[in-house]
């Protein structure tokens, strides 16, 4: 079975849960026997080469096509990198800002619609939708050049590419929904994004949702037949030894951590309100908000207003080992997300032996038992849980044993097994 996969980021270029999930899933698929994967990835980590798009204009796609030896697990991984400035988690607004900065560098971009008809206007591709469409064009060329049995597209930016590949090849399409715009926007959905998402879901032969929460959104908000939507929960890669290493603490205070993008979707303000409540009762505790995002300034302002600044710290964006460093210093990890399709970071915290409090509005809460679950708006319950973990030693003891075991049992192979079943159900 050969899979044409439109995925995102691969190590070492990982910026979020999506890349981690793609990587883990491919690895898992490999171990359950699906080892022939054509992996198409937008090469979008800052050093993107826009000149390649010029070549589409000539009617020929030159794409870097290489076989990489990811020695440990993949004997053979067929990588296809496409020059595009697409990156995961883009929103149309952000993209516009970004691409305007890039305008001077870029020479020539095509404008197209993904209906199959290409119209090369030669204008500048300063909007995300055009770029997605261009990606779809590339996808259709790839679909023409290679042979495969099934198409698997991750996240909405890749749906048009998946649709195009399906149109060209006639092969079945599986779309993998890691998030919907309802999660990202907190309700104020961008109609353009919604349209692409809906088109992708409708064109798909099967849809994989990362949680039942997401599955319900797909069925209810996008009007998709429930028989077409399958839930496959994400898993987590075991940590390397150096990531598990315990760091020396410089202060005696307990540390409560929020780690994630500081955006509306992640509910950072609820964390601050809970912190405020806890600090009224406890002295030897500090709160850390690690991450950045469009709500960061408002959060700093809120902390200042509540006069808890001396006990509440902002680290900015953390990457790589800093994340594990942060975990190893933490006594509690809180994920107060308003709408989290899955949420992989609590699992990483649990791997580092950190007790976690997660919102019930997260996909990961469907599979975790050894975590405290609260409604994101219930800051009293959240504060109570934080206080409980810090104060009553039974909880950390309990988590150390059981939560670690639980998270170690969440294996990508299990998820991949289900994905394989989905493939088999669509290949006639």
């Amino acid at each position: 079975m050969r899979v044409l996969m439109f995925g995102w980021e691969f190590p070492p270029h990982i910026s979020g849960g999506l890349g981690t999930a793609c990587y883990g899933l491919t690895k898992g698929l490999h171990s359950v026997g699906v080892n022939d994967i054509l992996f198409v990835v937008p090469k979008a980590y800052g050093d993107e080469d826009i000149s390649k798009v010029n070549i589409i204009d000539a009617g020929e796609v030159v794409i870097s096509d290489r076989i990489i030896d990811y020695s440990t697990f993949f004997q053979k991984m067929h990588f296809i990198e496409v020059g595009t400035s697409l990156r995961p988690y883009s929103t149309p607004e952000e993209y516009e800002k970004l691409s305007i900065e890039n305008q001077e560098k870029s020479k020539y971009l095509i404008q197209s619609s993904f209906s199959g008809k290409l119209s090369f206007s030669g204008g500048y591709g300063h909007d995300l939708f055009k770029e997605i469409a261009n990606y779809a064009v590339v996808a259709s060329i790839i679909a023409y050049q290679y042979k495969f049995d099934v198409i698997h597209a991750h996240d909405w930016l890749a749906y048009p590419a998946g649709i195009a590949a399906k149109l060209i090849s006639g092969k079945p399409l599986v779309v993998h929904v890691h998030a919907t715009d309802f999660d990202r926007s907190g309700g104020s959905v961008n109609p353009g994004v919604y349209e692409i998402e809906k088109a992708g879901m409708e064109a798909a032969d099967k849809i994989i949702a990362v949680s039942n929460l997401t599955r319900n959104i797909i069925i209810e908000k996008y009007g998709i037949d429930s028989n077409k939507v399958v839930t496959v929960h994400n898993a987590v890669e075991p940590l390397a030894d150096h990531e598990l290493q315990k760091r020396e603490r410089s202060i005696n205070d307990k540390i409560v951590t929020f780690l994630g993008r500081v955006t509306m979707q992640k509910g950072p303000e609820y964390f601050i309100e809970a912190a405020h409540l806890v600090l009224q009762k406890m002295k030897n505790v500090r709160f850390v908000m690690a991450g950045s995002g469009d709500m960061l300034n408002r959060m700093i302002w809120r902390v200042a207003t509540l006069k808890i600044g001396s006990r509440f710290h902002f680290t900015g964006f953390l990457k790589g080992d800093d994340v594990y460093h942060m975990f190893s210093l933490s006594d509690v990890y809180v994920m107060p997300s308003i709408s989290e399709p899955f949420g992989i970071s609590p699992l990483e915290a649990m791997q580092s032996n950190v007790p976690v409090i997660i919102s019930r509005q997260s996909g990961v809460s469907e599979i975790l038992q050894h975590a405290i679950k609260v409604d994101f708006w219930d800051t009293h319950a959240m504060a109570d849980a934080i206080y409980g973990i810090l104060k009553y030693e039974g909880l950390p003891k309990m988590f150390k044993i059981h939560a670690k075991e639980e998270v170690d049992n969440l294996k990508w192979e299990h998820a991949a097994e289900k994905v394989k079943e989905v493939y088999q159900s669509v290949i006639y």
Partner: protein
Amino acid sequence: MRTICLYFQIHQPFRLKRYRFFNIGNDHYYYDDFLNESIIARVAERSYLQTNKVIRQIIKEYGTQFKVAFSISGIALDQLQLYAPEVIESFQKLAKTGSVEFLSETFSHSLVALKNKDEFVRQVNEHKQRIKELFNQEPTVFRNTELVYSDKIGADVADMGFAAMLTEGARHVLGWKSPNYLYCNSINPRLKVLLRNFRMSDDISFRFSNKGWSEFPLTAEKFAGWLKKLDKKEETVNIFIDYETFGEHQWMESGIFEFLTALPGVVYKSTNFCFSTPSEIASNLLPISTISVPYPISWADEERDLTSWLGNELQVDAFNKLYSLTDKVARINDEKIQKDWKYLQASDHFYYMSTKFFSDGATQAYFNPYDTPYEAYINYMNVLSDFSIRVNSLIPESTDEQEIANLTQVIAEKDELLHKYESELKKLKSTKTKIKAAAKSTASVPVKGRKSGSPKKEKTNLPKAGKK
């Protein structure tokens, strides 16, 4: 004479309200009145009153031939008195029939037997007293919370003067042996041990309305048929179940009341079994052997052990924190503290913290107010924090008392010393008079005045020190 022993357990805990850490130190009322009242009202109506009616009917028909035993926890009695006094009255009527025996247990439906003998005895006595007050009976048979039993607990119970104790006929304890005989404790053989026939008990309490069960539907005739098939030598079948089985766990619509109504008639007609109370069995039957239970057993789950209450770190921590207060609470003479102390010990609080149902997925705690064991633990620990703050705030007062006690002891010691000195003085005086007598004969006058002066001085000094 072969016999059936019916014993029904009645217990409802005072469930705690949602108690946030913010309440600690501010709010000293811990119970969810609305929840507790509505559960009691519901169970009273659907189960207790209904079943009592059925049992009254049976007794009316068969008189004292029919026997049944109840154990009602002190906490349940408190709640019934608060929310459904008619249930108490109904039990009082049953008590007067002479067919009903009330058993002894810990007032708090607690697991204190595992922890502290003094407190265990205190709770048993308190419960005994309450049973005497309400039903005018003095229990001679003991059943521990959740039928928790071990050789050691059995011996403690024997020390309290009980004739018999009830426990589970756990397979891992019995092995090839049958629960259908009377056994005795292996440390103190004077204590008889009645073992629950868990298969036949669970057939009624768990499987009665299970349509997937191969024996469904269970009728009184079928049950009597099983009794007839038992080995002829087997003497007693102990059916120990929760009273809520009737009407609550098994709904009225399942025909559970018809089953109970029909059972005595069918048993008398078609078998040679009769009905007895636990105390009758203990005095009429001879124990066939000792039973050795080195590690505590209970009637819960497949494992029949303590893991439902003390199986994980949360439960162990909460349990130890609670009982670390025992000595302090014993010194506090405050009605409210004593009441909360009793209510916080109910085994149910620990049961709610169990993570066992994570793995078997089946058993959901009955009327469990919490979504997860973690919530249960945090809530309980918040309450316990407030409780221990209250306890500790009252202790200084009693350390004053302690100081007074210490001082009176000092006084007593000094008084004793005084006595010693006095007697020594007397002795000295008498020797002196002897010397004087001897001296008189030799005629020496000046010695007298000096020697009698100093003891007088001592005498006036000493009482002063004593008064202090």
